[in-house]
């Protein structure tokens, strides 16, 4: 697709059915709506932290759509659209961000550290690139299990500088693992532009150095992302080898709510990408030109999606936080004596001094 949503090369048109493409669009826009509301909620002090996905929705949805639903996903932190595409409920996105008692993660992590077992999305962790060699191990196990499953591993161009990335690439190639390495090259690692991150030809150029077939795609073209991922998946399963996709995109939002990117880039630069090359706009042009979407539907959907998000948001806010006992469980599978003693000690402490703690906000 070009920036006006016109297919450039008809032989590369995936010819996806209307339902599927509409799902792409709804996933991306719902994510966008959720991002706006949760970003605002952090500004208002309702949640502690948030990271938006502005501008990268195409990378998430295009790749997620090309996978099987049982393919295991290892992400970094800016891949919420993959979960969105897999129909992760708004309620649970919110629960994790609020750290309330409905959070399947039991409220232990900062916001946006989602995880979902049923949807095969491994829980996010803050350290960068640690997921890369792990994804390779998981792919190796999938290969041994003959499960017709692959693993996809997302990371940014900044994380690709970590030693773990090098380790992961090399292991995947030498051990012949069915894995897709998906690099979101969005131009910045917090404030560090790509010129200060690497001097070579991006991430895709590193692949052949490891013996990994690599491709660079326009990350804001959801169909290009879809095509590349689809083909990579097909071959990874058939040939038990890794593939590297570098999706060129742009991080329209700040790195996180702790960042103000006007400190290191111009508003003009951001506006350019937002207005001229946004994955959502490009897909909308495509939909409209096919007669699959129009102004009225857009209006209706915006209202509807906003309403859905607001409802989930209000509910999440009202819920209690998890029981403090959950501080101590799951450190090990069984609770060792030392932790049990610490837990008892906290219980005793709260019995005496509970009035000094906001216990009413926590599940009993």
């Amino acid at each position, binding site marked *: 697709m070009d920036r006006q949503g016109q297919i450039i090369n008809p032989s590369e048109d995936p010819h996806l059915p209307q339902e599927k493409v509409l799902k792409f669009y709804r996933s991306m826009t719902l994510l966008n709506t959720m991002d706006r509301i949760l970003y605002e909620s952090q500004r208002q002090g309702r949640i502690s932290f948030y990271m938006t996905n502005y501008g990268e929705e195409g990378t998430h949805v295009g790749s997620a759509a090309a996978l099987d639903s049982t393919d295991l996903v290892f992400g970094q932190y800016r891949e919420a659209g993959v979960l969105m595409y897999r129909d992760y409920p708004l309620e649970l996105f919110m629960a994790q961000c609020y750290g309330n008692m409905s959070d399947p993660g039991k409220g232990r992590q900062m916001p946006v550290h989602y*995880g979902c077992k049923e949807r095969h999305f491994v829980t996010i962790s803050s350290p960068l690139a640690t997921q890369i060699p792990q994804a390779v191990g998981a792919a190796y196990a999938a290969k041994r299990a003959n499960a017709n499953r692959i693993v996809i591993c997302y990371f940014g161009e900044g994380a690709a500088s970590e030693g773990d990335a090098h380790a992961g690439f090399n292991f995947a190639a030498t051990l012949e693992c069915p894995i897709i390495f998906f690099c979101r090259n969005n131009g910045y690692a917090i404030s560090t532009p790509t010129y200060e991150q690497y001097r070579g030809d991006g991430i895709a150029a590193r692949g052949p150095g490891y013996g990994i077939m690599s491709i660079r795609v326009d990350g804001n073209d959801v169909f290009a992302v879809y095509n590349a991922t689809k083909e990579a998946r097909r071959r990874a399963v058939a040939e038990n080898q890794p593939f590297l996709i570098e999706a060129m995109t742009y991080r329209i939002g700040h790195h996180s709510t702790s960042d103000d990117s006007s400190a290191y880039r111009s508003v003009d630069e951001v506006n350019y990408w937002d207005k001229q090359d946004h994955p959502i706009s490009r897909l909308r042009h495509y939909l409209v030109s096919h007669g699959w979407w129009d102004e009225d539907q857009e209006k209706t959907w915006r209202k509807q999606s906003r309403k859905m998000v607001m409802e989930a948001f209000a509910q999440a806010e009202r819920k209690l936080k998890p029981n403090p006992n959950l501080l101590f469980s799951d450190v090990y599978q069984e609770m060792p004596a030392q932790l049990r003693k610490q837990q008892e000690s906290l219980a005793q402490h709260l019995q005496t001094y509970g009035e000094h703690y906001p216990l009413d906000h926590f599940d009993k």
Partner: protein
Amino acid sequence: MELSSLLTRRRVGMAAAASTAGRLLRLGAVRAEGHCRRLRRAGLERGFLQPTSAGKDAAQKRHVAHFTFQPDRESQEHGQTQKMNLFQAVTSALDNSLAKDPTAVIFGEDVAFGGVFRCTVGLRDKYGKDRVFNTPLCEQGIVGFGIGIAVTGATAIAEIQFADYIFPAFDQIVNEAAKYRYRSGDLFNCGSLTIRSPWGCVGHGGLYHSQCPEAFFAHCPGIKVVIPRSPFQAKGLLLSCIEDKNPCIFFEPKILYRAAVEQVPVEPYTIPLSQAEVIQEGSDITLVAWGTQVHVIREVALMAREKLGVSCEIIDLRTIIPWDVDTVCKSVIKTGRLLISHEAPLTGGFASEISSTVQMLHTRRNPIHFFWEDCYLKLFSHLYHGYG
């Protein structure tokens, strides 16, 4: 005058030492058990604590370990046994694991041909190259890869070639493996990961083939750290680590790989984790150690009895974390004195954790202690912890 006569004596002494060394070198060709028996007979009478200026011993010292391995009495509980050294006991455990668990895989640097310490000899031929395989030379990759296998539920047995090289994997161990279950709310875990690594002094290892890094990991909730003192212990503890539903680090005292020989059951068996073992009862002082140092401590206990009339209770800690506070405390209540000995550096070594925990229990007035408040004990003297 005195100096020259000293020099003369030293030259004579060195000549004598050289011939002794020659004898020892020939002895070196004898099988390990023979060497150990000779050492044991020679042992205490020769005076390991005599000054090294005793001329004829000077060259011999290089060929003599600082301890004698003392096997435990053979266990009858687990069926037929076979004479094994420590690396063979490890191989046996790995063999049992791969036989029993079709998902189990072993990987690391050089494991395919049998490993630099021969712990994986024969396993690749027996179980296939997809189950016993080399990885590239990258510890952070080895552990990260192992975590990933374990996340899918398969059993991952990773080898780090020397504990001295485990540090590149520290992030993966501490930030990832240890926290996987907790941070995901138990949606995911890597409990089926075990990391094995040669550990401890070997005589000639220098800074980078001798380290005991257990203290770094002791500070990390979510993993278990286990160190055996013998082949029998090694096999049982390693099998427990592999079966344990938490990521475990199993340190294997490399100096014991060949020097320690015992009857070890051929069939699989487990020894519980987080249980220290009182290997000798006593009444005057509690001695705590783990790994190789247990054997040093045993000799110390013998000397204490013979020369000082002191009755020592010896505890092999076995699991460093989570450690068996109860057993150590019960013992110190009985004896009133505690000495902890480990190879690792003194400052921040694991003896500090043990001694401070026991000390806390002693100081009932301490307002911040909340462990075992009903465990009252008197210490007759300070705690002493030394390093070997």
